[in-house]
């Protein structure tokens, strides 16, 4: 009786595995279904940025750089290859200008010169 029960458990497990199919997703043809809070690609809203530099100060990976000439003239650069996707910039920004989407991060073959200009603000003309 015990042997019969054990064989039944094995048969159950085999049939279950055949029905369920593989666990892996054939990306990009399958749906990856990442959760909403997943820390993926960084999104930036230039209108909300004030050039205060709090995100630059708190980034642990030196992935953000602010070249500031005056209160209105500044450039904010972002280096995706250095970014650790930790979300500290999102927490530090008081204006909500920088945030994580739940898209997957892009890829590149040139890590060192991969830089995105998040905002380039010029001084207002008289």
């Amino acid at each position, binding site marked *: 009786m015990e042997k019969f029960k054990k064989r039944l458990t094995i048969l159950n497990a085999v049939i279950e595995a055949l029905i369920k199919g593989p*666990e892996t997703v054939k990306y990009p043809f399958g749906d990856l279904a990442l*959760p909403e*809070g*997943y*820390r993926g690609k960084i999104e930036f809203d230039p209108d909300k940025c004030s050039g205060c530099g709090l995100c630059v*100060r*708190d*980034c*642990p*990976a030196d992935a953000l750089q602010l070249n500031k000439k005056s209160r209105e003239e500044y450039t904010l650069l972002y280096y995706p290859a250095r970014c*650790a*996707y*930790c*979300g*500290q910039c999102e*927490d*530090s920004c008081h204006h909500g200008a920088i945030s*994580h989407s739940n898209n997957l991060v892009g890829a590149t073959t040139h890590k060192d010169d991969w830089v995105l200009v998040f905002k380039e603000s010029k001084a207002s003309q008289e």
Partner: protein
Amino acid sequence: MDKISIPIGPQHPLLKEPLSMMVDIAGEKVLGGSLRLGYVHRGIERLAQQRTYVQNVHLIERICGICSHVHTTAYCYAVEALLGIEIPPRAQYIRALMCELERIHSHLLWLGILAKHIGLETIFMHTWHDREMALDIMEEISGGRVSHAANQIGGVRFDLDEEHIDMIRGILKKLHSQVDGLVDIIETEPAAMARTKGVAPISPDMIKAYGVVGPVARASGVDIDLRRDAPLPPYDQLEVKVVTHPGGDAWARTFVRAEETRVSLNLCEKILEDLPEGDVSLRTPRRVPEGEVIIRAEAPRGELFYYLRSDGSDKPARLKVRTPTLATLSLLPVQLAEINVADIPVVLAGVDLCIACADR
């Protein structure tokens, strides 16, 4: 019989992380061994002196991939002790929930590795598949499977609403039944028992002399568990069942870790039941007043020791980390004497190596 020295590592199919061992064998018996560390030394303690307290939370998380949350928990509690603040109770419970989920995923990872080393490949596949359920919970609530970034100085970075709690309870129920099945198999499977009973016994005196901590110590009958002896909040309000076994051999180490997974699952359910209401974080100043603090936490592999000294600026003056694997590795050359060559994988699996932790 002539003595032959075999190098194992730094890259080797047995090892997940680089570790160099030189094992002396004669025939089928191992005579002894020595080991070399430092292949993944990144100088975390020195780097931490050059970054601010806020940046260090993310640096500390990357000391280890398997036990990343407990490292940041200990660091955040250390900084909060120097600041003289106590975080809200809801944040303490969420930190404990992530710690216990991490313990579950770490022990399931270990169970898969042990089964693979013995030769039971199917258990390895099933264990790592069920481990994905624990990682799914952590991904839903914190945003990352392995790098959770859950802690910040002053609390945690996310809150749990009703939907999250229902989802966690549902997955925990499924995980509990799967883990029960796996633990029953590994505790009664004749092949696993035959390969591990009587292998590399360690006596309690050796445990004390070498300063070994964690499940390896509990498997020799030494009753230490920091969740009960020096509890960080909220473990002082939770009752933790400490699992020990007097055997001291590889079978005892298997039993202790397998039972601890069950205890952690029960603790997770209790934490969700008792979760208090309130905020999840406090605002904290950037500069930390002068002082020194020592914090100990129970990582999945044992006692984690943090020493932090602040000199009044916004960067730490000294951060010292002593991870549990470093203590357990000092016993490895002694364990390697008097065993058979075929038992080397079993002994390595019993130690539950985390070389990234040991090297920092």
